[in-house]
């Protein structure tokens, strides 16, 4: 049986601009949520999010490469470059021919699209920028990584809203496990901070005007975030043959559809994905040491996810350490599955549980151990990362310490 291991990781988000900064952010419970940079917008009901401040793409790539892609794809390239560098892999012609790229993104280059629509509708212009189409496409992150590294193997992008990059990692895992490829770069990226999209989120009334407080009784919504996380994954045999040091093993991937409601989650659907991930991993609920929850901080998600964990894990739901790192880096939509998988892996390899920050008051309907406000030390062997998308599409990844 082919075992699939993570050998390199890269991240760029409000909680950390590389893996080391991100790990320390998780460990210290730092908040990456800040007031939006000054702009002309004053009519939004929320003013804070997990924005990456002072990102200058030309610090990371040639100006012409940066010009060709939207901010979300620039994040993808930056994170992939860190992952490849940390993996120590030599991208030989044979490996570039075989390697896969699977990315997730929910809204793609919508800032570019928003700019074009602004020019046409608001400014009354009769033309938009010629690169609007290729900068908007959700696969621009995968394409940017392919162009950067000259990778010509199977490459594509998955869009399942807030589960996009969890499905992407799961798909890449499945492709490596099946023998389709020996090596993949996978993860997700998102850059959702533009006026039009923020107005759409405002209209849904799920974004907090204050702070995101997952599982706390006084929670009143999510904070949005942006960024990317990418990892290199390969077979254990391939990694060892090239002298790489595996970081962690991906052992399970579960996915399901709620068939319940376009936005309201279902505990049964979420639980089914958790159970499927554990089944593939060949482990029981009691072996899970940490759950990185979807934990958006909305009224409905957190209570439904709590019920789902009880359904899937039974009594162990009351014992396992759970947290939502979203209060620290924001809900990064299509990048969430990747950023939070990385949080789970870093917690597992670092022997700690990241906290759920901003937690105030216990909720009788959310009565599990959410690691409120302070990280704690804990050695454990298995972690899972939950991602539950609008549209009722769920993805859960299971990781094992090496």
């Amino acid at each position, binding site marked *: 049986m082919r075992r699939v291991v993570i050998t390199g990781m890269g991240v760029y988000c409000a909680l950390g601009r590389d893996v080391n900064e991100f790990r320390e952010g998780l460990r210290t419970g730092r908040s990456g949520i800040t007031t*939006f940079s000054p702009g002309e917008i004053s009519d*939004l009901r929320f003013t804070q999010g997990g924005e990456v401040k002072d990102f200058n793409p030309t610090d990371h790539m040639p100006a012409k490469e940066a010009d060709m892609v939207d901010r979300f794809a620039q994040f993808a390239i930056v994170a992939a470059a860190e992952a490849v560098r940390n993996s120590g892999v030599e991208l030989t012609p044979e490996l570039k021919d075989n390697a896969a790229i699977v990315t997730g993104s929910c809204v793609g280059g919508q800032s570019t699209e928003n700019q074009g629509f602004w020019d046409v509708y608001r400014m009354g212009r009769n033309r938009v920028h010629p690169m609007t189409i290729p900068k908007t496409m959700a696969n621009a992150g995968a394409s940017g990584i392919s162009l950067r590294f000259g990778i010509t193997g199977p490459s594509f992008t998955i869009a399942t809203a807030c589960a996009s990059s969890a499905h992407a990692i799961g798909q890449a895992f499945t492709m490596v496990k099946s023998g389709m490829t020996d090596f993949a770069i996978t993860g997700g990226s998102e850059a959702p901070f*533009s006026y039009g999209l923020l107005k759409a989120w405002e209209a849904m009334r799920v974004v907090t005007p204050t702070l995101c407080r997952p599982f706390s009784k006084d929670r009143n919504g999510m904070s949005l975030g942006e960024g990317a996380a990418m990892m290199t994954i390969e077979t254990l045999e391939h990694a060892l043959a090239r002298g790489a040091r595996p970081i962690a093993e991906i052992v399970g991937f579960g996915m399901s559809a709620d068939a319940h409601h376009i936005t309201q989650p279902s505990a049964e659907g979420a639980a089914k994905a958790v159970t499927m991930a554990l089944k593939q991993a060949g482990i029981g609920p009691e072996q899970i040491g940490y759950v990185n929850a979807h934990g958006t901080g909305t009224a409905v998600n957190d209570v439904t996810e709590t019920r789902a964990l009880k359904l899937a894990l039974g009594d162990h739901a009351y014992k396992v350490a759970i947290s939502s790192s979203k209060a620290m880096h924001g809900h990064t939509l299509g990048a969430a599955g990747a950023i939070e998988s990385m949080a789970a892996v870093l917690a597992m390899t670092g022997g700690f549980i990241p906290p759920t920050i901003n937690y105030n008051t216990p909720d009788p309907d959310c009565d599990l151990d959410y690691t409120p406000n302070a990280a704690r030390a804990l050695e454990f062997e298995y972690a899972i990362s939950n991602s539950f998308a609008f549209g009722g599409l769920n993805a859960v990844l299971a990781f094992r310490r090496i």
Partner: protein
Amino acid sequence: MPEEMIPDNPTPESAAAPAPAEAVDALAERVLQIIADTQRKSRSLISIDSSFEELGIDSMDGVNIVFALENEFNINVPDDEVKNIRNVRDMVEGVRKLVDDAAPSARPSSPAPSSESDAPAAS
């Protein structure tokens, strides 16, 4: 993606010899500066006699330059014209013709939009 949109291998900056200092009129200077800005090249590398091939400008780059020129000069460049332009001089003369053609008629009341973004940045 149409074949003509596949980017060529860009010419390395070092391969393009610095253009000799040459007097060009104000309109041509604006065009050359826009080519430099959009292509992220030094203005000194771009001459009125440069071909796009020498400058490593592919067809998508050309479309991007035309977009910037349209905004700068408040003109509309027809698709057919875009396809035929393969060097800097043709581009300058094409712009000059469109600007001259537009001159006798009443200009739109709004000033030429700049290529600067004036949409509010939400972030």
